[in-house]
């Protein structure tokens, strides 16, 4: 007990002593956990080192080897130890544990699987530890790979440019002009988001394929067909444009009215203002949209398989090497080829955006007003938007009609017989729901928590954390699937083939969306609300649970539903990660599209769309947001 000026100060002392004890206990518990982890995942095994033959006598030498992933273990130890360096975190054990857990999970579930892609592709073989370029030499000997690489890039760039251009124009039309039917056009143009991308391909084939309703039955075209690169570009455009529309709509709606009025006041005519003010201001969003569509295109597996007609891309090649031929190292090398253009695109986008300031310096600006545009600008834009909406109606209409006819293209009599095939797919549907709900909530929760950490707390390494949590959005799904297999397939994890690996992979793959939504929501909330709670004596944990989270729950559910939908419709990563027992609905549906009748497959696609629409409707009721607003998660 300290006696200062003869006055004992018992409370002061006991508080600090109790805190010190708590702190020591925390360190001991963490050390114990690390040792347990080490014992479980690291083992010293006696392995055969070499055999020497002298005369006819064989001598076998053995050596001790550390089995498991000592490197990963070392990273985990560092992730546990580093936060202790911060005075601020040492003061608050709950915050410290939060930072440690986030860092560890980002290392294990993001950086490690990605790192494996790099490591494995430079390995000579499964057992070899040496650096080697042999995988790339092997790749060059496969003639299709060089072509697939070129095809992937051409496809990615074309789709990104066209989808971004069309999506931007449609977003502008729907946000800032006074065209009619906006409500319906908005819903219809983003409809393709509720189905897997390859459902677009499938519907396209129903309409324009060899026995397509329009090409064969109406126009009697038999000479030409839609299979090949042009067809893939078309369907990728339809499935990727909605994302562009969503991102750009939000940004167009937030442009300050003052800026355009100032330009007009200074003598700028409508087109001049569009060119010099409006579009430059949305450049960062346009680049983000271009990046996302590029990545979506190069990781697309379903559309090239269905529409390619022999047109090979890297995603399909990787599938063949990994899943059908089970050559892990070659698959990794292919994934490596995919991740390079993705990272280059990411770097370019980052570089351009950071060169200039796009932050509006004003506060309380009036936003989102309707521009009275001259008719010769307005009506062509309206025409483009209506065209996209009509295509959507045709595609989804054909799926639902197709599901209820006897044999599409031959016999259009009504039947419910196709639904019978769905019953056999109920286990896969259940699997998909388990995985999607799980990844939705996991990704949403982790996203909100990291958002709170990086936007409200100051601690060293905060930006690194933000980067690790964001990097996944530039990584093609194919690469993530391959990375998880490479990282967790073998001893000591044997994690592949379980539900949890798919849940975790999906959750961390879509984490950036949950994170960005959370950060945006966080910025709307006055920090003094949290400070008031802390000041009144609530702990960090209580403050987060009772103040922060309730204020953020809309953002949380928006993140959950977005990840849910993306997980329900994913195929690129699913083909690598699911196994017999955990087969996912999209994978089954994809097989039916290849092997079954069009009408059977239409029933599969229709059911998935209905499920997603129900999920969206529920969330719309839950949050009181309109259907379209639910997607506003850019």
């Amino acid at each position: 007990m300290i006696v200062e000026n003869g006055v004992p100060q018992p409370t002061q002392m006991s508080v600090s002593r109790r805190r010190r004890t708590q702190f020591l206990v925390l360190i001991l518990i963490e050390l114990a956990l690390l040792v347990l982890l080490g014992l479980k995942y690291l083992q010293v095994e006696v392995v055969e080192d070499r055999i020497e033959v002298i005369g006819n006598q064989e001598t076998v030498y053995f050596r001790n080897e550390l089995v498991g992933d000592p490197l990963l273990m070392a990273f985990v130890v560092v992730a546990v130890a580093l936060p202790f360096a911060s005075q601020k975190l040492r003061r608050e054990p709950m915050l410290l544990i939060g930072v440690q857990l986030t860092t560890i999970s980002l290392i294990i579930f993001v950086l490690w699987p990605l790192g494996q892609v790099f490591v494995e592709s430079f390995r000579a073989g499964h057992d070899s530890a040496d650096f080697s370029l042999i995988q790339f030499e092997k790749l060059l000997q496969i003639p299709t790979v060089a072509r697939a690489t070129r095809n992937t890039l051409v496809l990615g760039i074309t789709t990104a440019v066209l989808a971004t251009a069309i999506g931007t124009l449609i977003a502008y039309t729907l946000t800032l002009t006074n065209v009619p039917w906006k409500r319906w056009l908005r819903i219809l143009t983003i409809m393709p988001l509720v189905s897997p991308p390859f459902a677009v391909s499938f519907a396209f084939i129903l309409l324009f394929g060899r026995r397509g309703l329009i090409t064969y039955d109406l126009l009697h075209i038999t000479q030409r067909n839609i299979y090949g690169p042009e067809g893939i570009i078309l369907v990728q455009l339809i499935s990727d444009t909605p994302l562009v529309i969503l991102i750009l709509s939000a940004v167009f709606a937030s442009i300050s009215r003052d800026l355009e009025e100032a330009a007009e006041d200074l003598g700028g005519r409508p087109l001049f203002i569009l060119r010099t003010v409006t579009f430059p201001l949305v450049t960062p969003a346009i680049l983000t949209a271009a990046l996302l569509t590029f990545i979506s295109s190069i990781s697309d597996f379903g559309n090239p398989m269905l529409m390619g007609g022999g047109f090979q891309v890297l995603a399909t090649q990787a599938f063949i090497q990994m899943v059908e031929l089970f050559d892990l190292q070659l698959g990794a090398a292919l994934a490596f080829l995919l991740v390079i253009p993705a990272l280059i695109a990411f770097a370019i986008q980052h570089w351009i955006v950071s060169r200039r300031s796009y932050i509006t310096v004003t506060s309380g600006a009036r936003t989102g007003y309707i521009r009275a545009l001259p008719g010769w600008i307005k009506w062509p834009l309206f025409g483009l938007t209506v065209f996209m909406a009509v295509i959507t109606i045709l595609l989804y209409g054909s799926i639902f009609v197709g599901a209820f006819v006897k044999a599409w293209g031959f016999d259009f009599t009504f039947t419910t017989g196709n639904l019978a095939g769905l019953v056999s797919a109920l286990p896969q549907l259940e699997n998909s729901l388990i995985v999607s709900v799980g990844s939705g909530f996991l990704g949403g929760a982790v996203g909100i928590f990291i958002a709170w950490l990086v936007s409200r707390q100051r601690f060293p390494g905060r930006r690194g954390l933000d980067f690790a949590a964001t990097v996944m959005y530039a990584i093609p799904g194919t690469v993530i699937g391959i990375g998880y297999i490479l990282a967790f397939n073998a001893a000591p994890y044997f994690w592949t083939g379980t539900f949890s690996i798919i849940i975790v992979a999906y959750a961390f793959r879509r984490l950036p969306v949950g994170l960005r939504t959370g950060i945006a929501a966080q910025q709307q909330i006055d920090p003094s609300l949290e400070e008031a709670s802390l000041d009144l004596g609530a702990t960090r944990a209580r403050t987060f649970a009772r103040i922060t989270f309730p204020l953020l729950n809309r953002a949380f559910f928006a993140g959950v539903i977005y990840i849910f939908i993306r997980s329900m419709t994913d195929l690129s990563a699913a083909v690598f990660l699911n196994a017999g027992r955990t087969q996912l609905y999209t994978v089954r549906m994809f097989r039916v599209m290849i092997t079954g009748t069009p009408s059977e497959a239409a029933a599969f696609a229709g059911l998935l769309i209905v499920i997603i629409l129900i999920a969206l409707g529920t969330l719309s009721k839950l949050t009181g947001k309109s259907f379209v607003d639910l997607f506003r998660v850019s």
Partner: protein
Amino acid sequence: MADFSTASIKLQNLAKHFGTNKAVDDVNLIVEEGTLVCLLGPSGCGKTTSLRMVAGFEEPTAGKIFIGQDDITNVPPYVRPTAMVFQSYALFPHMSVFENIGYGLKARRTPRSEIEPQVMEVVRLMELEGHERKSPPQLSGGQQQRVALARALVIRPKVLLFDEPLSNLDALLRVRMRGEIRSIQKRLGITSLYVTHDQEEAFSIADQVAIMNKGKIIQIGPPRELYRAPVDRFVAEFVGLSNIVPVEVLSSGSDGAAVRVFDQTIRSHRPPKNPKGDVAIVLRPEALRLSIDGENGVPATVLTFAFTGPLVRYNVRTADGILLVVDLHNPGPDQFFEEGTQVRLHLPERVPALLG
């Protein structure tokens, strides 16, 4: 910037209705060439809507707008010879200071070789040298304000419009910037329409102030006149602090009136409009005096007082229970009255006008 051509602004029966809400209701106003007129009023009084109609951002429901002799009512904003300084400054965040200022010239297809000297001329005028390459967020609030003004001046508008340009600045800077705006406006002799809700700002910057309320101009005149002789209670209360006390009219004629308040007789230069109705007097706090002793004066009690440095503001209550505010400037040591002190209140003998 010698070759500035400027012109008057004329609003003729101008009206703007949003549904049934008459945001601007039959406004008539002339801003003489080279003068600065302030539209002053509470938020929602229609002052900003009027300004935006002059700029061309709102279409009038009725009425006409003239700049000089030209009827510009149906001319789009980008053709009008107006330039506006926005409340938010509206500086383009993706352009440098130089590009911001040169924007209007580019929009007018000024040859590239002429843009640079013209921009640099206003850069010097606004003392922004050395900041041309910076981007707006790197500037301080006052510098951003100067860029906004420079951007408006460089296109040589016939008319400058200001939409509460100083409301984003802190108090000290606000006073300095309004001095700068006024001196540049006077130096260039450019006709200006200025919107604000800050009475002190309006008075210190304007040749004429138009007080607006509920879409109408209530009174227009030089600041002195508005302060000394408000036409109604709204103006009296909006312009400065007032003690408004009901009076009994003793006599009223064209040369003035005599009224009775607190058993004292006060003369007014201007008679009330309706001597038979409710008539009140405006007693400005600084026109009242307090003393501790003496026979004349109205007996009153000091309730509270606040010392602000140059003045002491007293709240006093007269014997008949009326509360008054009294300001004593530059108070001497014998002029401090503690709370509860019985004092004598001295009224002015003459006031400029009566309400009612």
